[in-house]
């Protein structure tokens, strides 16, 4: 018996190590930083001009007041608040998915975690920014700190998002350190920039051990924080008494929607990166297939929550609730509601359930419709309730103005621009983690699978799937 475990690594030696990490791979992964071609300049120019247009729109709004939006009484919230919920939702792509995959030891996570984490950090900024756009007095925004009143769910948001931003930035930065060290050594001209950021990383075992421990701790911290963020965002609505906002399932419903739209955004980002930086060898079909499966689970969950939420409202039949529900299902916002159902459920279901269409193209199409559908979901949550307040005396209608649409376009453009700039400064696929996957991951996985099988209890059997 005692000599059986010793036999395993020997066997593993013969089975794995077909792939070796080469200089070519490092060059591939640094392509985005080395090259600044015409495509890049054109992208920056186009995105930059959209951003400038949005800046103009915002200055226009600052000068003339909120009257330039389509908002009115009683529809006091509109596109900006939808954007806020939508962007914060997208941010759940990164940290949450990356943390779950890391904790589960899912080997296929290696090339995708970084691109996911960057989405989180950047898109959060736009979530917060949209609340500032929505303020009648942005010059007094700091009153939230100096006169904080913690009974307001908005304050819970501020707290939760701040913690989330700090922890997910740390969580993005930690796995970046070894890669920054690679950049420091490869680009001596930019040493002034990468040098301090690399924190003296030299790749010793002690450093590696510490880093992995820290990443592990951050992954655990980040999970409940991420869940709290979208729960609290939902509570901004659920804590009011307005019909169809005052719902107990809003917390989990929003979290599910957030992860749902987050994975969709991640898939779109990955497909673009793959194309732009020739990363087909790293972001492979299998990654899209696996993320597609995850997306399928979220599609089903999203539908379940949506169905439960609306059926309860319908069955209860309270007039105030019915007014909102009917506005969504058959009323003025019905086109948006049913487009949402098609985009978030029917199209993804059709594409993702069949292995034939669960490829790069299929998952990207599903992701695009989901992203559109989820924005519409936020809209059909925020607006129909406000249009039909509890007392029937003041009914409204809301059509967003050009200023609001410009700001949405501007936020999208700015987000993509910041993302592109990030890929020009840092590798968007974690080089050291891919290397680690090649050098250690396959052996570890083999050991792990062996440990699941009948036989003696061995060491090194971390839980989780490959």
């Amino acid at each position, binding site marked *: 018996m005692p000599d059986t475990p010793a036999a395993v690594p020997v066997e593993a030696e013969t089975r794995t190590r077909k792939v070796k990490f080469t200089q070519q791979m490092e060059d591939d992964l640094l392509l985005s930083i080395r090259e600044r071609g015409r495509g890049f300049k054109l992208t920056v120019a186009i995105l930059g001009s959209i951003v400038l247009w949005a800046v103009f729109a915002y200055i226009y709004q600052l000068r*003339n*007041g*909120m*009257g330039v939006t389509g*908002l*009115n*009484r*009683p*529809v*006091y*919230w509109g596109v900006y608040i939808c954007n806020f919920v939508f962007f914060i939702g997208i941010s759940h792509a990164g940290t949450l998915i990356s943390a779950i995959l890391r904790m589960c030891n899912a080997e296929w996570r290696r090339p995708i975690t970084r691109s996911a984490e960057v989405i989180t950090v950047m898109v959060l900024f736009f979530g917060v920014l949209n*609340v500032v756009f*929505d*303020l*009648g*007095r*942005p010059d*007094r*925004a700091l*009153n*939230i700190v100096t*006169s*904080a*009143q913690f*009974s*307001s*769910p*908005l*304050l819970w948001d*501020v707290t939760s998002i701040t913690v989330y931003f700090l922890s997910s930035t740390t969580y993005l930065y930690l796995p970046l350190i070894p890669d920054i060290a690679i950049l420091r050594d490869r680009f001596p001209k930019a040493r002034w920039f990468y040098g301090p950021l690399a924190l003296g990383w030299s790749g010793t075992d002690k450093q590696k051990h510490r880093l992995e421990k820290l990443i592990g701790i951050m992954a655990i911290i980040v999970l409940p924080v991420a869940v709290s963020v979208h729960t609290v965002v939902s509570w*901004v609505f659920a*804590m*009011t*008494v*307005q019909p169809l906002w005052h719902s107990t399932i809003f917390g989990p419903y929003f979290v599910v929607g957030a992860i749902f739209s987050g994975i969709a955004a991640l898939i779109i980002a990955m497909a673009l990166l793959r194309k732009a930086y020739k990363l087909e060898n790293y972001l492979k079909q299998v990654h899209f297939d696996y993320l597609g499966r995850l997306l399928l689970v979220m599609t089903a969950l999203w539908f379940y929550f949506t169905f439960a939420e609306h059926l309860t409202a319908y069955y209860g039949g309270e007039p105030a609730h019915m007014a909102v529900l009917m506005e969504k299902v058959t009323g003025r916002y019905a086109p948006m509601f049913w487009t949402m159902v098609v985009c978030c459920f029917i199209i993804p279901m059709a594409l993702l359930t069949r292995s034939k269409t669960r490829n790069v193209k299929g998952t990207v199409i599903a992701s695009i419709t989901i992203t559109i559908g989820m924005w519409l979901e936020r809209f059909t949550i925020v607006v129909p309730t*406000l249009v039909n*307040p*509890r*007392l029937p*005396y*003041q009914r*409204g*209608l809301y059509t967003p103005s050009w200023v609001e649409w410009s700001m949405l376009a501007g936020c999208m453009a700015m987000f993509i621009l910041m993302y592109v700039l990030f890929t020009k400064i840092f590798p968007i696929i974690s080089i050291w983690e891919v290397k680690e996957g090649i050098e250690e991951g396959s052996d570890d996985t083999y050991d792990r699978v062996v440990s699941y099988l009948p036989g003696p209890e061995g060491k090194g059997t971390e839980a989780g799937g490959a």
Partner: protein
Amino acid sequence: MSKWGMVIDLAACTGCSSCTVACKSENNVPLSDPTDIEASRSFSWLQIMKIEEEGHGRARYLPRPCMHCDHPLCVLVCPVEATRLDKDGIVSQIYDRCIGCRYCTNNCPYTAKYFNWHTPVWPEEMMQGLNPDVSIRPKGVVEKCTFCHHRLQSVTDQAGAEKREIREGEFSPACKEVCPTQAIHFGDLEDPNSTVSKLAGTNRAFKELEDLGTEPKVIYLREDF
């Protein structure tokens, strides 16, 4: 301590709207031009709703000021305490602190709050008529009926100087003063002998959306008795 409240007798209200006009001029409520009205952005701290009833062949009128709830939902959600429940029961607005997030307007089940979509303007001739006791709200903040609490300040000062309690009828908002049919009563709900307390105890009294538990201090007297 007093707890100010209002009783509106719907049997006496004729829907003449003089309360709305008095309120507007007393509180420097911005004027609404036709584009504002079309965009559903008109201001009126005290709005008279006309409810046409089928079969009756007549309309009912419902004057709607801020309800000054004892459990105000707007106060609960304000992130900067720019709206609060004062000790005397009045729900007040602090214009200088409001950040204009409009969370309070959304959580008010009575839709009784108003937002300044743009800088308020008055025709030159009307500028002379603005009330110097009431501040003019800038664009981007929320405002609403205050039970004319600027009037309470001078009344409190007077009573304090004379070392006595505020007398019944001494403090009343502009809408009450101008109502030609005396449909609006105003006073201290804490004082069992005040008119409002007595009226609020009759079987005609009801409150809007009573089941929400907001405890409004505007009490209506229904007409069909």
